[in-house]
């Protein structure tokens, strides 16, 4: 069964909150309007459409836009061999949505990573702790307003206190930042 057909079935079931399938490079994406229903939609996708594997969950920080967070779920069915991408958006004030650990146990670490990196919380997660950074780390480093070089802090035991050596360097490319002409080392004014 083709991926588009399965996506249509899922969309028909949840037509009130799921927007029609969008295709790009042969991949099907469905957008969920209400993040509160993500677990319910995933449950149906797993039970009735045999998307038995959760490949990945990704978080995107749309900094400066509303809603700020986009969550991307990559589903896969080992039986039918089709991928499906589910996207949903969460506002910065809320920063919370239901967990899908009850649907796929593999979601556990993915959700912990998103909490760790972006600070989006998953309601009902059995063990929502930081996973890559250490307990007590004060920031969410994958947010767009967190600088690449790190942040100085007065908490010497829990975070970096010195800025990274590359900070402000010529080879740091920022999306929407200065173009490479401005970053080219030869046009920079030498510091005296």
């Amino acid at each position, binding site marked *: 069964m083709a991926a588009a057909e399965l996506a249509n079935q899922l969309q028909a079931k949840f037509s009130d909150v799921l927007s029609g399938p969008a295709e790009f490079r042969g991949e099907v994406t469905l957008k969920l309007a209400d993040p509160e229903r993500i677990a319910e939609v995933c449950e149906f996708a797993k039970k009735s459409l045999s998307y038995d594997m959760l490949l990945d969950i990704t978080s995107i920080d749309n900094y400066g836009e509303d809603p700020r967070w986009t969550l*991307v779920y990559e589903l896969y069915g*080992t039986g039918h*061999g089709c991928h499906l991408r589910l996207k949903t958006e969460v506002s910065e004030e809320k920063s919370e949505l239901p967990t899908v650990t009850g649907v*796929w*146990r593999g979601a556990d670490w993915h959700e912990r990573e998103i909490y760790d990196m972006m600070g989006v919380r998953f309601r009902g997660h059995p063990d929502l702790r930081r996973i890559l950074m250490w307990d007590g780390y004060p920031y969410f480093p*994958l947010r767009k307003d967190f600088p690449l070089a790190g942040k100085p802090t007065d908490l010497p035991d829990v975070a970096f206190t010195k800025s990274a050596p590359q900070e402000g360097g010529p080879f740091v490319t920022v999306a929407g930042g200065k173009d490479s002409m401005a970053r080219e080392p030869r046009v920079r004014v030498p510091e005296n």
Partner: protein
Amino acid sequence: MATAQTIEFHDPASRVAAGAKSLMPEIVPASAPSTGGDDGELHGEKMILNMGPSHPSTHGVLRIILELDGEIITKATPDVGYLHRGDEKIAENMTYTQFIPYTDRLDYLAPLANNVAYALAVEKLMGIDQQLPPRCQYIRVICCEMARVSAHLLGLGAFAMDIGALTVFLHTFTEREKIYSLIERLTGARFTTSYTRIGGLSRDLPPGWADALRKFCDEVEVNFAESETLLTRNRIFVDRTRNVGIISRADAIDYGLTGPNLRGSGVDYDVRKAHPYLVYGELDFEVPVGSVGDSYDRYLVRMGEMRQSVRLIRQCLDQLPGGDDNDAMEPINVPDGKVVLPAKDKVMTSMEELIHQFMLVTQGVNAPPGEIYFGAENPKGELGFYINSRGGGTPYRLKIRAPSFCNLSILPHVLPGHMMSDAVSILGSIDFVMGECDR
């Protein structure tokens, strides 16, 4: 009785004569364990044991907090992140091409395979993955399979060493050394290869390299047979691995396991077969699948995969468009000046090439807005790249789906109930790389 001052500790004989035993601190007999519970069994106090972060069998920096009841593991809490370098953050701050060297450092046992997976992901976003010249595709398959042999040889050697069979490690590392020499001739680096480019490869095969690889294929097959003789029917190895760390088919899928760990549990899912990329669809190979899902099955699957990889390498070498030394001048790059750097001599003499060179180096390739997910079958499992682009030469968000991360997430489920010593066997059979897990 001799006093401590008169004893020369560097001389064992005099130590014995002096009765070194008497110098040892008196051993206080431990208080008898409390006999709790009504089931008639002895229940000791639970002990917390920190395994790692630099335990030899964690192959890197994985820490597992084990709760032990005697020698039985009752709870396991893995603690990852000791090797976190923020690769995804870094990727958002550089052009697509600049990120290639960072992919070397994901699964650092198979950098070539990571290079290929990343290049294919960006090419999918650009929509040029179908335009890759055949010679490029064949060389990339050769690279992936060499990486697979290399990674599995290490995984196998380290696995066997962890449970006491040191000889296998020496055997497999002899062959890995040869792979590294081949990779060095091909890419200029033994370890951090950075061999692919968006839309092609950094260079063609060097003269005589294909023959050297053929010779290696013959030699490594002898080595497989030797390693197999040392392990497959080895009573100790079989006892340590069979029915240890059984992962059921349903659990493997539910936890998102991929690669040999998933196939060891009997799931016939290999990205190379299910969603063929490059020229895998035209090549003839089999996917070994286990039945029980124990450590022994995962070992057998890896052993079988290496043989299939050699088979794939041989086919690619035989079918390589342009022949070994590319006398036919087959292209290895996409014929698009807006994607691939022009030849250096053209840059110096031709205006158009100079502009292309300048734009590519300063701005990077111009990717369209959109989002893609591309998964490749790497030695450890499905290495996926999710790229969210808002146009231009820099990804807005690049997510790495690391197979080792997903594979390790099953540890709290699979470790409890096993003996402490079996943890080493299970970790070895899951064969993870922390560089990839922590990113």
